[in-house]
């Protein structure tokens, strides 16, 4: 089972899978937008 949940007011993302947690931090919208202009293959 996998679960995806945003915590701390949407600043962090915790993905739990097979008893392990992976933590992500949010990329600010403007930073993400600027990166999308310059980085090839941006997801």
């Amino acid at each position, binding site marked *: 089972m*996998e679960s995806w949940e945003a915590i701390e007011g949407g600043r962090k993302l915790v993905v739990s899978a097979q008893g392990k947690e*992976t933590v992500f931090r949010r990329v600010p919208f403007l930073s993400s937008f600027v990166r999308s202009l310059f980085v090839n293959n941006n997801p």
Partner: protein
Amino acid sequence: MTASNRRRDLSFLLPILIVLGVAGYRYARSSPLDGTWLKTDGVGYLANEMRLQLTRNEFTVRFRRDETMGLAGVEHITFLLDGREHLFEAQPGGARMIYRAELDGRKVVVIKHVAPHRRRGTFHGELGSY
């Protein structure tokens, strides 16, 4: 200030107001999961950078494929959040991975399992299920 100057000022402001309105609407409609995320802690199969989008019916994950594995491009995975079983992945040998996904409060829960091999030529399932 003359009327024509005022009109010119307003015509300059109008596109900015429209852009701000669209951005505000999108921000208000978005879920806390929406956006781009960078991995900070934990190991595993998840990519270092992902973009997520959650709507009422779908959860989409986008990430760059692992170039060290010889893969290129961007992978898109969309989970249907209807609590029913759907095909996640089918291998040429016949092995299939099935998933079921739903929204549990503010959490997206995905359950995957490997389905037994389907015998050739004996498919009796309904349309839409595998």
